[in-house]
């Protein structure tokens, strides 16, 4: 057995790696903001003009997240763009809603590993889709509520709530930036990268440099989050296992708490929820016990956007808080009462039953959720 001193050394190294990657992540957010500003108002306008259509924003959130299989990448990127003022909070709200839907594709893919296993597939697929169905139902309620309230009051309810929360916080700095030591050190990293490409490599100024920096920033975000999630999962595996064992037979708020904490620590709701799929498949975790964990994962994942917002200023923090409010609201809508809690569970079970009768239902479901809904919405709006 490995000596405890070696173990501690290894774990310390992992913690340091986490801190380093967090720094890289925040630097990438800062860099993205700088690239966006460098590109100029014209470029941003042409890039984001389509997002005046909220269904387009929803579609961007769904598809971008499904492609990279990480809602954290999508929401962090959104925070970075909102921070520069090039993307408004109002236009960003549907993107973060879409990110919630897109992230569930990971679970669906994992559940397909059981596709030849009859009842195991039925249980696994139900577990994968209960998360998605919950997100769809939440968007079905809060998306129109946000749009209607914006139409009537000039600002959506989630945006209004987030703005009020941010305004109440004792934040240092004015005019769109936080003057914190973290912000300053992260700014240094972003400037160093910009200087590397401009002065050393010799890439000419905007728009070329802006484009290169944007790509570099996105790559940095993806890599940093990937390393963070893998690293933290390895670091916390034993504790995560203990918590999941504790919650296997329970159906209440403990699952919510564990889902939130695990996800906040590993910085990925996909990791938390996809860990549950084999347990659903094996039947050791029921939908009733696993559903609260998934709700908790939704809430826990908002920490990434909040972290990104620490270097993004009040506007970035507002959209990060919108993300948090959206997920908390969804939980409050469906979790407290048994009758509402059962709705996504029953729908998921029915869908899983159909999928075991005919696997084409799986394809149909993926097509409807990830292609048809966003596409139809865009067409109707137009």
């Amino acid at each position, binding site marked *: *057995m*490995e000596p405890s001193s070696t173990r501690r050394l290894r774990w310390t190294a992992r913690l340091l790696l986490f801190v380093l990657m967090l720094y890289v992540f925040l630097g990438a957010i800062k860099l993205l903001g700088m690239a966006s500003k460098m590109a100029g108002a014209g470029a941003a306008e042409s890039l984001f003009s389509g997002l005046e259509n909220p269904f387009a924003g929803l579609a961007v959130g769904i598809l971008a997240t499904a492609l990279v299989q990480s809602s954290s990448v999508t929401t962090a990127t959104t925070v970075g763009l909102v921070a520069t003022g090039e993307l408004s909070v109002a236009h960003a709200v549907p993107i973060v809603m879409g990110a919630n839907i897109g992230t569930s594709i990971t679970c669906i893919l994992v559940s397909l590993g059981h596709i030849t296993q009859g009842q195991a597939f039925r249980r696994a697929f139900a577990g994968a889709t209960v998360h998605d169905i919950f997100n769809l139902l939440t968007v079905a309620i809060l998306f129109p509520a946000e749009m209607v309230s914006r139409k009537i009051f000039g600002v959506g309810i989630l945006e209004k709530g987030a703005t009020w929360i941010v305004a109440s916080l004792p934040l240092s700095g004015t005019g769109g930036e936080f003057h914190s030591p973290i912000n300053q050190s992260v700014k240094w990293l972003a400037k160093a990268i910009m200087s590397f490409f401009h002065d050393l490599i010799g890439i000419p100024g905007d728009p070329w440099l802006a484009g290169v920096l944007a790509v570099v920033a996105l790559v940095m975000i993806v890599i940093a989050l990937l390393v963070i999630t893998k690293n933290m999962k390895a670091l*916390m595996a034993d504790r*995560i*296992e*203990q918590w999941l064992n504790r919650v296997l037979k329970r159906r209440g708020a403990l699952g919510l708490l564990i889902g939130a904490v695990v996800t906040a620590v590993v910085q990925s709701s996909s990791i938390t929820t996809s*860990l549950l799929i084999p347990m659903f498949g094996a039947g050791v975790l029921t939908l009733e016990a696993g559903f609260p964990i998934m709700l908790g994962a939704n809430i826990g994942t908002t920490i990434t956007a909040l972290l990104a917002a620490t270097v993004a200023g009040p506007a970035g923090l507002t959209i990060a808080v919108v993300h948090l409010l959206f997920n908390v609201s969804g939980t409050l809508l469906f979790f407290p009462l048994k009758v509402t809690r059962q709705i996504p569970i029953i729908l998921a079970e029915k869908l899983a039953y159909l999928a075991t009768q005919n696997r084409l239902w799986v394809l149909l479901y993926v097509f409807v959720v990830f292609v048809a809904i966003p596409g139809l919405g865009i067409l109707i709006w137009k």
Partner: protein
Amino acid sequence: MFDWLLGGGKANAGLQSMRTQFGQMLDAGRHVFDTAANAFLGGTDLDVIRDDLFATDKRINKAERQIRSEIVVHASVHGATEFPACLVLMSIVKDAERVGDYAKNLFDLAELAPETPSGEHRDCLVNLKDRISRMMATSREIFDSRETEGARELIIEAKEIEDFCDEKVNDLIRGNDASVMAPTYVLAYRYFKRVVSHLRNVASSVVQPVHKIDFTSKIIAEAADKENEDNGDDSQGEGEVVVSG
């Protein structure tokens, strides 16, 4: 705080917890076996021990289900590197549960038997009971310590007992004992043999690769060859001259 975050400071705490629970299953299995065997051999009042025996068996069954759940969680969290350890546990936890079941069968036999065992068969079964009870304690130690030499010795002793029980069953079936207790003795030897077989499987998990757990004929054959060699060396040493070349 650091230790708490990392799961209590011990690496692979989940697997260790399951192994501890399995060890407790073996201990409980020993208790159930001793209780049932004593009842069968006439040392105990059946009514007094019935509740305790069935409650312990229930605990063994519950532990099996608990370990199986935890195996799924462990494999999900830790991934493919932990599969072999999980598969081993999944296999041997069944063996520990079956020990409890056969002990319960022995108790049922005690209730149904027309008489209390007596004579040569009683002496035989008492001797077997003591050996098997000791083997249960040994199998727990071997499992905890992963001691391969001890595991091999247990496997060989188990095979001895299994062969002995088979011999006794064959004699009884051939009608060499026409007493009213013959069917009871057949079942008793059978149950003892099955308990020992399951202990052999547990020991095999210490020395065999995953795909060969429960398969110990090679180990037994190697031990027999070694014994023949030793016997051959001993007989040479007693004065027999071997001319080489």
